[in-house]
């Protein structure tokens, strides 16, 4: 069951971004690991759907970690302490250390932001942006892009099946793949553009390009207290980062 929402999405997103900033500023593996184990892990477990979020994090960060380990573990010409010489490739301690440190940082970066994004209530975020007076064109573009993505994927799937029914076979060669891509993309884009032109007329008819403030159907879940908290968080992280970076050797 999804958890009950306590904070405004903007506050949650900002907290995640500031946490990433702190990880980058402090730049110690102990701190990164602590954030991962004490911050991200409980948040995922309490999110109400830990399995899905865990899977998404593993799918995004996993391949990257593996490829980083292969790249730096085997090919790190700056490394001097050689563990195994495999001819072209050399396994070095420095390479493995670099891969581990980079891997940890990437995992924290991915896990923090993905956890925040996966538990995000997007309509609520867009409503908050409208209530806070953000650029309405930005709100429109972001909102309708997020809404369009599943629609585009579903439509592409349907066109692919229609083309397959007409005899489309995707071969292994790059030319064959590109032809297959084009046979799906062309009708997809034409259909989407026709839809878009209709939407343009509808939006114009409803005064989309007229100036003035906008209202939102969703109530404002933001509070003055959360706004103050957000400002305080930014200020605190800013001051801490400056002090840390100046004080660091």
């Amino acid at each position, binding site marked *: 069951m999804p958890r009950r929402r306590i904070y405004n999405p903007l506050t949650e997103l900002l907290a995640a971004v500031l946490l990433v900033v702190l990880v980058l*500023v402090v*730049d110690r593996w102990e701190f990164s690991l602590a954030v991962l184990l004490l911050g991200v892990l409980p948040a995922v477990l309490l999110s109400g759907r830990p399995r899905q979020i865990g899977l998404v994090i593993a799918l*995004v960060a996993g*391949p990257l970690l593996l*490829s*980083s380990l*292969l*790249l730096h573990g*085997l*090919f790190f*010409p*700056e490394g001097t302490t050689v563990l195994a010489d495999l001819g072209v*490739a050399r396994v070095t301690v420095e390479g493995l250390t*670099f891969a581990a*440190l*980079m891997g940890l*940082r*990437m995992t924290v*970066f*991915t896990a923090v*932001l993905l956890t925040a*994004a996966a538990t*995000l209530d*997007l309509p609520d975020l867009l409503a908050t942006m409208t209530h806070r007076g953000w*650029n309405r*064109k*930005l709100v429109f*573009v*972001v909102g309708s*892009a997020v809404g*369009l*993505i599943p629609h*585009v*994927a579903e*439509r592409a799937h*349907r*066109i692919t099946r*229609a*083309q397959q029914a007409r005899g489309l076979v995707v071969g292994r060669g790059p030319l064959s793949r590109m032809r297959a891509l*084009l*046979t799906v*993309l*062309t*009708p*997809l884009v*034409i*259909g*989407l*553009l*026709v839809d*878009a*032109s209709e939407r*343009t*007329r509808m*939006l*114009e008819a409803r*005064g*989309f*390009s*007229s100036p003035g403030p906008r209202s939102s159907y969703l109530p404002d879940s933001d509070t003055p207290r959360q706004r103050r908290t957000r400002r305080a968080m930014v200020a605190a992280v800013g001051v801490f980062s400056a002090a840390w970076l100046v004080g660091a050797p």
Partner: protein
Amino acid sequence: MSSSLTLASDPAVRRPRRLLIVLGAALIAATYVFLVVVQPAEIAGGVGSTASLVSLFGFLGGGALLVGGILPMLSTSSLVIMPLGIALNIAIGQIAGSLGMQIYLDAIGTVLVAVLAGPAAGAATGAISNAVWGLFNPLALPFAAGAALIGLLAGLAARYGAFRRVYFAPVAGLVVGAVGGLVAAPVAVFMFGAAGTFGTNAIIAVFRSMGDKLLVAATKQGLLSDSLDKIVVFVIVALIVYALPPRAVRQFPFARTYRVLGTRTGTGTGSADGGTAGMSATGSSTGDAADSRRTPTRGNDAGVA
């Protein structure tokens, strides 16, 4: 349909905020210069936190300023196809990434928007696209400025005639891809240690085994992959826009004014009643019958502009 029938238009709303655009471009350029000139020594010794902070904030902040400056000047028809471009970028980029390909194919939507609606819309599409993609895949987030640059350059290429012949498109793609690769390489190195897909990492591994530094190897890989990627993307987009019904292209003032597709884009007056040309005028053998939702009956619509 004009909104001025009901509400007074406000010319100030359409004016681009030049200061924001200049600041954004300057911030991106300064970040790039800082990363390339100052930092290469640091990455070999450690993972370099300052460099990653600078690359994250310089490129993201620059992209945000650019978007803030560009959005007020865009017309509704440009704004409406931007989500379409963003959705295409993410849907196709996600597939290409999960297949472990050596190219990314995540700029088809950006280039399409840039060709139809101009460099400003292309740049905004690129930047917002990576920001939205960041909600599903945070690794895309730091590349927002590079994506904006691709959109800007693709729009400029279209404006100066790179799409008037299909065979010009790969040349423009090569140039745009090379610039894009140069800009993306430091981000990949300082944020993620140049780790990408297995395909791109294999190329970096080849250069590393020859003894190149990480930034040099990633830049060479970026030049190779991005150029190839953008050649493919530009050719795909050129083939798509040539298969579009003329009236679908003519609804975009940019494509009309600069005759992006040469004589096919019309004479510049761009009247909406060109719609009588119908959908079948350019129907390629691939696009014709596939999507039953394409509804040829729409050729009877009053007009699209």
